[in-house]
């Protein structure tokens, strides 16, 4: 089992990032970034392939990949690479318009890659504490990216983000310490006491109360980063004010990574105190998130905030799936992947609209399908997918989650369906009035290069979204099956 794909996966962004900081030369950076995108995608695919084939891969006990990590690798790798392409187009356009200097241009890509790298690192780590460090790393790089264009709003958003998520992350660290505190008696005062695999093994012996408290801290801590209500408050600001490629990455990747962290803790907690405890908490918060997002989507006046709230909703749905367990886990994982694709697509579209009109007001944007076909299509397709309509995967996962929750607690299913319907109505109301109708103000047309790169990114995403809409490719199926095993469920689903 060769370990280089895994190394490449984490290393590629780092190299590319440092490279772009060094070369300070546009074409070179573009080439570098495109290469990076390709490398990352290939590496992610290879890693996933290894896992599908062998079940596990590791590099010196430091990097350790199981099905769940591989799933995240795929998501981050794919969306990350399309996002990189998009960023090349987007920030390039800003460079052409002299909104950013070449220096800050290269800085941006350095940060952007570091951000991707830290996330890729976080999901491939074996040690929960080091995972914490990596996630904190991503928080910090994101903090700088959000404030990238130094408008007042951006600064405010960045400040709120950095404070809130630092607090959250601190709480998560306390949770980690508690786990360590209770595990070191069995595994000794050493790295062993922080390894997932070991923790799973000895989970039954861990002290239940300690684990419960630890999980609460982890849930709230990482929940803050995942944008789970009521810890979500930073999210709309950050998504709205960050440069759009960053918004896309925040929504599609970082939230997903935070969910991943919660899941890791949940896996330990379930083994130790049974699935009900964690399940209850997660389901409660998930439903709260749905309610909050549905309501705020309705009153939204800003299209980037709109998609931000929709992210809160979908993270909530995915968590609900994991919370109810069983096939909910399948659905949750599936939901995460499809949401990452759809939401990044939505933000790509939104970004193009922003470049053209230079404002984020919903009411002033109409007739996108006619005015900007690419952006219009992106937003329309993404909107339909995010509203949970077939032929897209989000429909599948939502139905499965409803079914799962109904068999466990019907009232959850009722509430969930009601909130889904509300969110559906509100989201489509907003999206459709953007894409349909007569075009409004003209705005400034986009440069050719920008159009090429961004259209490529959008195209890739939409194709992927369509292909995995109504069928799980066999490879992914095996991955999902082994993910289910992590949560102690078999794939004994009647067809």
């Amino acid at each position, binding site marked *: 089992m060769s370990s280089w794909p895994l190394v490449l996966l984490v290393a590629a962004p780092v190299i590319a990032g440092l490279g772009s900081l060094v070369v300070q030369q546009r074409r070179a950076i573009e080439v570098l970034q495109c290469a990076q995108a390709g490398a990352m995608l290939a590496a992610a695919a290879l890693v996933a392939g290894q896992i599908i084939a062998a079940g596990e891969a590791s590099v010196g006990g430091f990097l350790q990949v199981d099905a769940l990590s591989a799933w995240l690798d795929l998501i981050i790798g794919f969306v990350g690479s399309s996002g990189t392409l998009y960023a090349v187009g987007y920030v390039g356009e800003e460079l052409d318009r002299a909104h950013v200097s070449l220096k800050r241009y290269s800085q941006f890509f350095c940060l952007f890659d570091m951000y991707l790298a830290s996330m890729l690192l976080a999901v491939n780590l074996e040690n929960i504490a*080091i995972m914490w460090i990596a996630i904190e790393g991503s928080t910090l790089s994101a*903090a700088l990216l959000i404030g990238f264009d130094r408008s007042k709003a951006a600064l405010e958003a960045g400040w709120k983000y*950095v404070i809130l998520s630092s607090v959250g992350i601190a709480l998560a660290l306390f949770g980690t310490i508690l786990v360590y505190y209770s595990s070191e008696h069995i595994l000794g005062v*050493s790295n062993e006491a922080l390894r997932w695999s070991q923790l799973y093994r000895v989970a039954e012996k861990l002290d239940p109360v300690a684990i419960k408290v630890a999980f609460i801290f982890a849930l709230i801590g990482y929940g803050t980063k995942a944008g789970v209500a009521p810890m979500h408050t930073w999210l709309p600001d950050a998504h709205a004010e960050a440069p759009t490629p960053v918004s896309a990455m925040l929504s599609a990747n970082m939230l997903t990574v935070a969910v991943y962290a919660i899941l890791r803790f949940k896996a330990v907690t379930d083994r130790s105190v049974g699935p009900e405890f964690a399940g209850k908490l997660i389901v409660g918060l998930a439903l709260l998130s749905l309610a909050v997002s549905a309501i705020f989507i309705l009153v939204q006046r800003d299209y980037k905030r709109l998609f931000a709230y929709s992210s809160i909703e979908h993270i909530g749905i995915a968590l609900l799936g994991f919370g109810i367990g069983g096939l909910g886990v399948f659905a949750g994982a599936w939901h995460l992947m499809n949401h990452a694709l759809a939401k990044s697509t939505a933000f790509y579209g939104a970004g193009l609209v922003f470049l053209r009109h230079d404002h984020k007001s919903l009411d002033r944007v109409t007739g996108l399908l006619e005015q900007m076909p690419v952006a219009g299509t992106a937003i329309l397709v993404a909107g339909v997918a995010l509203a949970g309509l077939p032929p897209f995967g989000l429909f599948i996962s939502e139905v499965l989650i409803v079914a799962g929750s109904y068999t466990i607690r019907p009232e959850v299913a009722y509430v969930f369906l009601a909130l889904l319907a509300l969110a559906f109505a509100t989201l489509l109301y907003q999206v459709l009035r953007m894409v349909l109708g007569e075009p409004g103000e003209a705005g400034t047309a986009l440069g050719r290069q920008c159009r090429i790169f961004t259209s490529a990114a959008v195209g890739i995403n939409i194709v992927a979204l369509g292909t995995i809409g109504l069928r799980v490719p066999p490879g992914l199926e095996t991955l999902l099956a082994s993910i289910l095993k992590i949560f102690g469920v078999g794939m004994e689903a009647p067809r």
Partner: protein
Amino acid sequence: MSLFSIDVGSQLVDLGSALLLLTCFAIVAQRRLSACVDLFVLQSVFLALTASLVAFLTGIHHIYVAAALTIVVKAVIIPRILKQVIEHVNVKRELEMNVNVPTGLLICGALVILAFFITQPIIPLGFLLTRDSLAIALAIVLIGFFMMIARKKAVTQVIGFLVMENGLFLGATAAAYGMPLIVELGVFFDLLVGTLIIGIYSHRLQDAFDSVDTSKLTTLKE
């Protein structure tokens, strides 16, 4: 180990933890900004002492490293950064609060009780040496958190955050006999960078809004 019997040692560790807690209350009670920073330095020193005490008693040596780092980072570098920020943004010496001092102290007391209440069932499985440090660590985390809510100025929020960090560190070293070294290093690195970034932000905020009263940052809302 020959000098002290275990229980004396545990007495000392508890004493250290208690001192940390006291400094917390002091910070909450403190109205002057620079004094807050000084108190934070003092707390960090106590923290380092407690940590090294644990290291000495248990003979787990990498905790010494952690203690040393604490001194360097929290007692020297970070206070300097903070002072610089204070200089640059020339904040008023008086602090505005959302909650007045007596109420604040009361709440902090309640938080301490909460901490003990929660950790009660867990403590028995702790090491004999560090009986109540976990409870105290949790208490300090909560109080730090509360400080961030209660105080308006950016810098004081940073201090609150750092106090939280101290609590965490106490939990890690005293209660859990220290994380593995690499973890400690990573945590400290992140902490440093984080504080730097927060510093940068408060600079920019000062430039943009000519104040760092974060309660004025309310343009982004529904």
